[in-house]
């Protein structure tokens, strides 16, 4: 069992970035 806490931190950041990008692209194109 090897759990590195930076893994979930990086995952959370990736999620936020993806959310921002998709929300931006959808709202600009279809909003």
């Amino acid at each position, binding site marked *: 069992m090897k759990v*590195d*806490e930076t893994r979930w*931190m990086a995952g*959370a950041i990736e999620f936020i*970035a993806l959310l*921002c990008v*998709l929300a931006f*692209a959808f709202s*600009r194109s279809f909003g």
Partner: protein
Amino acid sequence: MSTPTDDRAGPPLGSPGNVVESHTVGALIPDHGARRLPRTLWLLIYGIALAGPFVLIAASDRGAPRPFMFELGSGLGIAALSMLALQLVLPARLPVLAEIGAEVAVRLHRRLADIMLAAVAAHVAAVMVADPSRLGLLAFFGAPWRAQAAIGSVVALVVLMVTSIVRRRVRLSYRLWRAFHLSLGAIALVLAVVHTIGVGRYLATGPAEWALVALTAAGLGALLVMRSRLFRHGSLRPYIVERVIPERGGAVTVELRADGHTGQRFIPGQFAWLKLPDLKASLAEHPFSYASSAEAPGRPSFTMKTIAGFTARAAGFEPGTRLLVDGPHGAFRPRSSSTGTLLIAGGIGITPSMSILRTAADRSDRRPYLLLYASRNLDGITFADELETLKTRMTLTVVNVLSAPPPDWPGERGRINAGVLDRHLPGDIRHWQFLVCGSGPFVDGAVEALVAVGVPGERVHAERFVEV
């Protein structure tokens, strides 16, 4: 280190005996929930920095809408730029980041590098898919300056990442690599900003301009902080080499004396960056665990295995040599609420354990300490004699585990595994703490063994030393 991610160099790295990364295995236990908050808070700040430009764009005049793929490309570019700027901030050892720990910041920096590069690649791909005629811009020569800046930025990023991955294989020195890494990081950010201004869309108009200015200032400002001593007066102090003592196992101890101050107080288990004050070596910084007792902050000592570079030079330090110490750093520290401590050390990974034990002895700590200490052979047991002395001053049991023992060795042999733990762990370890320190593979093996004998992962704190 075993994985490509771990092989990738990132600041800060150092020599054997150097703390490079530490992490807590598993979730943090509830009674230490306070330590979890700064990470969450820090994530929140990062999230705001990432989402901020998008919010400001929403408040700007954004022109006519374009097809989805165009907007997706722009969005990815904005996110990639923000992440690039924040990449420069992460390893800057800013006081505000101290709570998450320098080594956690560096690990995160390495992990996010992949995500940032993926965002850059996706940005380029989306832009090309949206308008394939733009493929011609990749020719560089004859392309508009905004495209040239973009290509330059991507090339800088790719070179930066490749040099980090192959650094040890091609024996690029830490000092040279670091200078290279910082310069390429700055170039990549500046060119990305130039590209953004050249494109002249979202981040180059209206209130969102402030986001571009803030990101650029944060990234370049962090680089300045990293390179400048002016900003580091708070933690940088002069010391004088008192003496250099040869130790068993090809190690030396450098004993220092605070020069003109009372010494920086540290917690046993933490580390500091040692630096030669001369200009030529101003880029050469080396992280080492404090090996001495925290009760004597004015006379810290650092023990290192002498291999090459700084450590080889350190072995020849004359008494009176001046050194600058930037510390303390690191979150590898004993918990006062525990009823006992198991220290597992591999080779030169003994240094933080020595600091913990010496401090406990000086403080007349009556709680039991068990040290499982892996060495190659009897001659390789650094601090063997002092550990015997410490046993008379505190409740300390030392179990030496030798991987290449003499035939008549009566003790443990091989590796530290579940069997060794079963034989030596006391019955009641519910409120014990477990600290592991050594090379990456050693730490992995020890943590696996601890988990196999039922130690909850959240009670294990692991510290990895990396050889450079």
